């Protein structure tokens, strides 16, 4: 009764033209990030120095003599501090993005889908948070909550969720009028199913891409807070306090500030490559 249809997914036809699942950009980003994570995890194997052990008799030594990158003003091994600092910064960066991502994403999803008063109230709150400069708010919150990594998480989450809420809400507003979302509704599927299976996978990409650059911003925020003495408490090694302390010796021992700075840049590069790779893979721009 029906006429024949053409072959499905010809070997070298349309199917072969879709973007490859893995691409060079994504692979490079993942490799770079993987190297950073491995360095952080296996820090005790890569250096025998203790990152917090002081030896004032050996302060500010040049690289060499058993200290790969020399020592800081308190005689601590810079290379060891760099590796252990990666543990702190990667963890704080990731967690400081995870909570805003989950909370903001969920609120944006519901606001975009439901609309009405919920959307109205949420977006006004977003407007208020956005109107206050990011650092002013974070610093005020950390100051109020007391310094420490937990305060940093809470402060960044309280400020950071708005970006995710906005992105996801905007994407949902478009996606819910797409015919596949209407079709899911016409099939009588329950709301949670439509939100989680039909809308979420199709709107999450933009938020994910943003989160990659947001991780770098969080690390920079920690660096800045450390600079103001509100960051990760001493003596826990982190890149922010390393940059701050190294700055005093910028004309004589420039690498004390430059090396942790470079680590931040490399982390940012890895995350940017991953984000680009994902966008490319999904065929969107």
């Amino acid at each position, binding site marked *: 009764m029906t*006429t*024949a*249809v*053409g*072959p499905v997914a*010809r070997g*070298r*036809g349309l199917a*072969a*033209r879709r973007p490859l699942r893995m691409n060079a950009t994504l692979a490079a980003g993942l490799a770079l990030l993987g190297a950073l994570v491995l360095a952080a995890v296996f820090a005790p194997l890569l250096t025998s120095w203790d990152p917090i052990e002081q030896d004032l008799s050996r302060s500010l030594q040049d690289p060499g003599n058993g200290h790969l990158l020399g020592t800081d003003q308190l005689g601590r091994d810079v290379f060891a501090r760099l590796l252990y600092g990666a543990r702190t910064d990667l963890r704080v960066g990731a967690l400081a993005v995870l909570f805003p991502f989950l909370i903001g994403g969920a609120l944006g999803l519901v606001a975009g889908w439901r609309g009405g008063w919920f959307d109205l109230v949420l977006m006004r709150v977003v407007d208020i948070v956005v109107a206050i400069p990011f650092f002013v708010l974070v610093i005020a919150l950390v100051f109020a909550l007391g310094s420490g990594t937990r305060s940093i998480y809470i402060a960044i989450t309280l400020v950071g969720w708005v970006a995710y809420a906005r992105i996801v809400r905007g994407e949902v507003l478009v996606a819910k009028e797409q015919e596949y979302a209407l079709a899911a509704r016409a099939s009588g599927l329950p709301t949670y199913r439509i939100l989680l299976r039909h809308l979420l996978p199709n709107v999450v990409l933009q938020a994910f891409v943003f989160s990659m650059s947001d991780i770098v911003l969080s690390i920079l925020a920690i660096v800045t807070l450390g600079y103001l003495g509100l960051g990760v408490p001493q003596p826990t090694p982190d890149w922010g306090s390393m940059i701050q302390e190294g700055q005093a010796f910028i004309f004589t021992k420039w690498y004390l500030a430059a090396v942790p700075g470079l680590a931040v840049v490399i982390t940012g590069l890895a995350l940017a490559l991953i984000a680009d790779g994902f966008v490319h893979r999904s065929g969107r721009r």
Partner: protein
Amino acid sequence: MTALLEVHDLNVEIPLSSGRLHAVRGVSLSASAGQAVGLVGESGSGKSLTLRAVMDLLPVPATITGGTIVVNGVDVSRMSAKQRREHLSSAMAMIFQDSLTALNPTMRVGDQVAEVPVRRLGMSRSSARARATELLDQVGIKDPERRYRAYPHELSGGMRQRICIAIALSAEPGLILADEPTTALDVTIQAQVLGVLARLRRDQGVGLVLVTHDLAVISGTCEHLNVMYGGRIVEDGPTGELIHAPRHPYTAALLRSVPDPDLPVHRLLSIAGAPPDLLEAIPGCAFAPRCPAVIDRCTTEQPPLAPIGRMRASACWRAHDHEHWPPDIAEPAAGEMRA
């Protein structure tokens, strides 16, 4: 009448990660002032790329890989990019399917019509303004002085397409190339825009090359038709003859699949199968796998576009044998439906 545009053996390829997509495969056609030539085919047939190649507006990364394009007696493929653009835009103008994106949203439509007269034809502002108003009137815009000051988003789709035609006319071209100009419009508006094009041709002798997927639109507008399939022209000839007595099975099948508003039929003829994969070399006729009249030769040897009678040509090994095609495609569709 000398030909304003002569395309010979045009080839266009698109490099992709999975190979080279040979989208246009040796297309030849010509158009003259005052004449309307139609290029009809389904998506992927290469009709739009042919038109864009002629106007040097191929989308990246598509490139012309062979053939010649002669405009006003000059082969443009040998010119520098700048020279070619000048030569092409003085002889031809193009209108597109989407009139909203074809217009500058931040500029008054009248100024957009007056732009070419001021910048290229060296008219004074006031005379260009008068000229633009006159052109708006010619494309059937009522109250042109007032509409001159409108922005594109303030006008309807049909109005905007008229503005696009006025802009095309402002360069005083001999030939207008139109890529699906009415596809985005409603039928009542489509009829008006086609009417404008027909009147310009009759009153001002402007030639037209019309690309569309809609056989009915093209049959009412053009006196000469080229039917494209799989990157080639498979049949060409005067519109009436081609529609009443198609000599290529694809033309015949396409005609039979178009529903007629005046006559309900029991069921429409559909063409089984899918269009060819243009990433691959096609040894015989591209339509052979879907053709009800296929013979052995069709799958091994490519039929050339060979003349049949006066002014007609068909790329089918069985073009002269059409009485013996299977009955579901052999009968001329329009003839039967009109009877």
